[in-house]
């Protein structure tokens, strides 16, 4: 029905962007400011409470910044995807638009913001005069891609569910808050006893954040088979998301 899926998604995303930031530079600056401020506060707090260098952690600040930005991407992306169908409810109830384009467009917004945040990360790395090599950067990009897959997979399921159950946002808020502390963002994984590592790393975001940190700052990578397994898990999750979405798609308009 639409030859212009790509344009449709792009237009929807642009519209969202314009609406949220009123087409102003100040609006965009605020989008960056949020994770940045968080970083500054946490950096200050934890550097004062305990000196990371004593635990053998180099480049704590860089790790913290990257982790926060990544987690922020995940949090904003899933929240945007979750609420997208309700937010664009007029579009859903008055005309046929493939619902998935709405969901994808909503997550694109967060991706855009994150990509712009990368500039800030790059600036910080320059400030600290630390340059990761090609492999770490490639790994980083790869993990970013996987994060986006997780966000999309989640949104495909959450958005139709949210139409039906409106308290999903509150539940998800609590879950993301828990995930923040369950992931090695403000602390390194090494602080925890060995037997808990596997459990923590079962959380995909924790896995991504931990290995991104390690790759960028310590040139330490997960074994290739582990990465393969992880990728497989993410892909399966994504596919499952699409399947669930397919099942729920028909009733979306009625339930809004």
């Amino acid at each position, binding site marked *: *029905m*639409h*030859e*212009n899926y790509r*344009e*449709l998604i792009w*237009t*929807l995303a642009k*519209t969202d962007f*314009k*609406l949220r930031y009123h087409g102003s530079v100040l609006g965009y600056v605020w989008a960056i400011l949020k994770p940045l401020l968080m970083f500054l506060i946490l950096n200050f707090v934890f550097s004062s409470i305990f000196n990371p260098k004593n635990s053998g952690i180099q480049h704590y600040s860089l790790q913290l910044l990257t982790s926060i930005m990544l987690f922020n991407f995940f949090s904003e992306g899933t929240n945007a995807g979750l609420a997208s169908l309700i937010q*664009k409810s*007029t*579009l*859903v*109830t*008055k*005309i*046929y*638009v493939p619902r998935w384009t709405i969901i994808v467009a909503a997550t694109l917004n967060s991706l855009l913001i994150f990509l712009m945040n990368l500039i800030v990360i790059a600036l910080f790395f320059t400030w600290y005069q630390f340059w990761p090599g090609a492999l770490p950067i490639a790994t980083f990009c790869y993990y970013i891609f996987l994060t986006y897959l997780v966000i999309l997979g989640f949104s495909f399921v959450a958005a139709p569910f949210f139409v*039906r*159950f*409106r*308290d*999903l946002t509150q*539940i998800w808020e609590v879950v993301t808050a828990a995930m923040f502390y369950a992931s090695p963002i403000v602390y390194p994984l090494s602080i925890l006893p060995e037997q808990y590592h596997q459990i923590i790393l079962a959380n995909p975001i924790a896995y991504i954040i931990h290995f991104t940190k390690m790759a960028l700052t310590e040139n330490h990578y997960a074994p290739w088979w582990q990465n393969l397994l992880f990728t497989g898990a993410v892909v399966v999750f994504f596919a499952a998301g699409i399947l669930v979405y397919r099942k729920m798609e*028909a*009733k979306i*308009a*009625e339930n809004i």
Partner: protein
Amino acid sequence: MNNENNVAIAVNNLSKTFKIPHNRISTLRGAFVSAFKNKAYEKFKALDKVSFEVKKGEFFGIIGRNGSGKSTLLKLLASIYTPDTGRIKINGRVSPFLELGIGFNPELSGRDNIYLNATVLGLTRKQIEEKFAKIVAFSELERFIDQKIKNYSSGMQVRLAFSVAIHANRDILLMDEVLAVGDTNFQQKCLEEFNKYRKQGRTVILVTHDMGTVQRHCDRALLLRNGKVVLIGNPLKAVEKYVNQNMSDEENRIEKNSENTENNNSAAEPPSAPVSAGKTTNPRPKKAAKITRVTFLDKNGKPKNVFGTGEDIIAKIHYQSNKKILKPVVGIAIYTQGGIHLTGPNTRTSHHLIDKMEGKGSLDFVIKNNPFYSGTYALTVALYDWECVHPYDIKDRAYQFKIFSKEENQLGTIKLNHLWKN
């Protein structure tokens, strides 16, 4: 097959039922709690085995009362809902115009909304840029195109939305009662566009309550009632059937109402509640005589509350007099719903002498060939003595009758017998 190519839309045995839960559960918490209770819900059958075809280039009207399933049908045709049973086959692309400004975002300018709306309707960016000037020109909103939509009036929004829908290059146009918002110039423009559409072999489906448009412009029409197809075909026949159904529905409703108020009336003495918003004045503390009941009948004596223009109307006035009254005068007055006094003869001015009134009786007021156009009219009935100074009873605008007219052009309140002459 040749036949296949002629058909724009083929609907076969379409049914759609909505489950309406008695308690709408909209939270996960609620779902957990109610999982252990019996979930009470109603099934509402919006459409029941609907089948019809629309040929390419037709101007197809869909009419029916509110709740008959028209909007549900359109949403199914636009793929917003999915059918429970039955099939919809659509040959070509659909441009729905179901409500004001599909996907219009009030915080964005008209320009941005055109881009958004047109993209949603399937145009590529290049196509939109090419057509932009034409879209704005058609909507006559050049001066306001960069203002936010929330500042537009509803008429402006319709013009913009319609302009985009028209230029979206699609084969089938679905319209749902939106044209009523525009002024007559706009409606004229729309009808011209529809005609252009048809000449290009494109199809227009219009849901409307404007019977005039259906009769004058539609090729064929579909009448829906309670989710079922009543009639498909000649638009004049469809409108006639629709009006007739409405008349009998009104009859039933008024009958039910007056049954209720009669029960109330007979229980207590006035001041009681009359059917309409009229007052009952009791000028004399002791009632020597009163008007007990007024019923409306057709020319065969059958009780009726809803008449067509030109029919005979008989108002049977029942009275009761507790003492012998010589030469009483009965008068009536007819008011429009807006309170305009149309006429008000009484038996004295009409030279119909009533000798006396004693006990119970009735008097008929006969209107032959009523000239009234569609509307609700109120009747006052009063009982006076011969000098018309002291009223025995006045039931001011206490009785209602309705006129449902099939006349095509109803200009004004009454239909006057007239001639034009050079």
